[in-house]
């Protein structure tokens, strides 16, 4: 079992790194002061797209200060989303080996568990987004985001980290298990697995 887990873990890491690495680089860039330019990532686009600059200017507040606060909030949002994604995807990648699925007719149980874990992951991602981006969250910058921007940010973040979860789970799942293989065969990306 442990050998099987160790065999799949590198695959999991490869899958997680596809979208996890850019997320980590972005988090680093967001935590960096405004005057420090990231080699890999610029972070200005985040505030440009999602921050309610009109609201900031309406109160005549300093846009640079507001951007720093906004980046700080967005960085912590990504940290939390990344943690959630890693917990669920790694949890599945390891936990799937312990499922009693190596018998004929158990593939649907495998899919059932997978759907529960995936749903919980997506629910967790949405919940974290709401907690961080809501007007009354502990981040003052949560007030510098309009309703539509908040919705867009929640959708995009959920899709991004949901995709990260998907890729890492597809690659890192219990590949040797019969049910897993049967299940994997039904997935749209089966040709690439």
């Amino acid at each position, binding site marked *: 079992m442990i050998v099987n887990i160790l065999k799949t873990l590198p695959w999991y890491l490869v899958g997680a790194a596809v979208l996890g690495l850019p997320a980590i680089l972005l988090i680093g860039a967001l935590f960096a002061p405004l005057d420090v330019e990231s080699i890999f990532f610029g972070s200005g686009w985040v505030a440009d797209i999602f921050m309610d600059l009109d609201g900031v200017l*309406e*109160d*005549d*507040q300093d846009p640079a200060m507001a951007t720093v606060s906004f980046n700080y909030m967005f960085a912590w949002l990504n940290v939390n989303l990344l943690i959630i994604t890693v917990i669920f995807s790694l949890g599945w990648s390891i936990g799937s080996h312990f499922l009693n699925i190596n018998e004929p007719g158990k593939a649907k149980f495998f899919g059932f568990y997978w759907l529960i874990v995936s749903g919980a992951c997506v629910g967790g991602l949405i919940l974290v987004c709401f907690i961080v981006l809501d*007007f*009354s969250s*502990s981040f*003052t910058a949560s007030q*510098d985001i309009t309703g539509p921007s908040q919705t867009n940010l929640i959708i995009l973040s959920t899709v991004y980290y949901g995709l990260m979860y998907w890729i890492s789970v597809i690659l890192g799942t219990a590949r040797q298990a019969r049910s897993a293989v049967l299940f994997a065969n039904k997935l749209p990306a089966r040709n690439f697995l």
Partner: protein
Amino acid sequence: MLTLNSKNSRMSKYIKYIYVLIFFFSTISNSYAACQPKFTLPEFPINNSGNQDLKNKVYVWYDASLSMSGFTKSQTDEINLYGPVINSLQKASQSLGTETSYNTFGSRFQTIDENRASLVTTQEFYKCTQSAQACAQKDRVNGISKVLNVAKKNQDSTVIIVTDLFLSTSETLAKNAEKIKSPLREIFNNGQSVGVFGISSSFNGKISGIPTGDGLGYASYSKATKRPFYIIVIGSGENINFIREKLENNQKLQDKLAEEPDAYHFSMITSNVIQKNLNVDKQITENNLLNISPQSEGYKFKYENNLPIYQFITSEKNFELEFNNSDFQVPGSNGVSDYKIDVDLWSSRETSCKDKNKWAKSKRENLVGDENITDETLSINVFEDTRLKWGYRWFALLNIYTKKNGSSSQDQFKIWDLNESDAANHLTTEPKTFKTLNLMNLIEMISDVANEEFKPTLVASIALNFELEK
């Protein structure tokens, strides 16, 4: 030598202490100054002191038209208030001024002596010595515009007019209306007010000059047993209220009001119903801000250059201010129907007052909701629909101005008003209480002129300095 050195060292010690103290106090004062942005206060109007020692001349004008004599004759089953009220009025006018001048208008426009004035509550006073036709002709014209012209020329005086206010329609139209409006403009422009007292009294006489339905002539009526008469006082708000107090203390009037509350009405019409600015006398207190408790965290209330500043920490997103109308409005006046509230708003990311705060002036609009105006209070809701951001310190400077005078007290006279078009019908019903022709025309005319001369007045300025928590 030694003692001199020790003295010097002691001196330098004291100087050091003084330096430390100066530094300490300057830090304290600076910390407070840092807690509010730089702003300009509007100029507070000077409150009238209402100095009772400054007495001026009082002009009393009696309407000497024949129909007024009906108030002097007794009428069975009805209480005569004309006599007692006029007696109270004469006493009040004596106390009010240094000198009282008595005059008549209507059928005769002349100054009368005290002996003649004392006869005003008798029939003798109203006897017309001319031919019946000439008397009837003169009776149709009230001539109040002439009295208003006298009031215009004697702006420091108080003018009291006793009349049945039975104005012909022609007196309220076009050039004749302008004859009434023109002196009123100057009266209001000079800051004077017009107090209208209406008292329903027993009546036993003939009312002439009632327009007939066909428009061809005038009818007279003598079956009325009750009719209102009016006392119009032109002068300062204080003097009008002085007379009001004296009249309302009249025992007979009080007895009558106990059984018939509609027997007496009063309205003060003025171009500025604001008696005093609330800042000047520091009448704004902690109690005016309703939803913030003075016991709450970080609460401070202080005046700075007559500006009351409420400082507090809160998670409330809107605030309610309430003022008693009686604290700033002229008593008995029409009140204010609309206010203009200017709000300047600043925010600072630095919520504590320890460091120098960087204040940014907000461009937000619609910071104040609709004010709730009742006969007793003015309530203002601030930031009701404004999503102020928490985690900031906010400073709001509110200046409350009057925008439009009200019409609450003048409306009560409508029950005694008679239109020319309704006059003939009114006559056919053979009423016991006869109404006053064109009463509301005149009252509305006075009110319109007061509104024309209306100038926005600063009622109060208030500052809210608060840290908004989540």
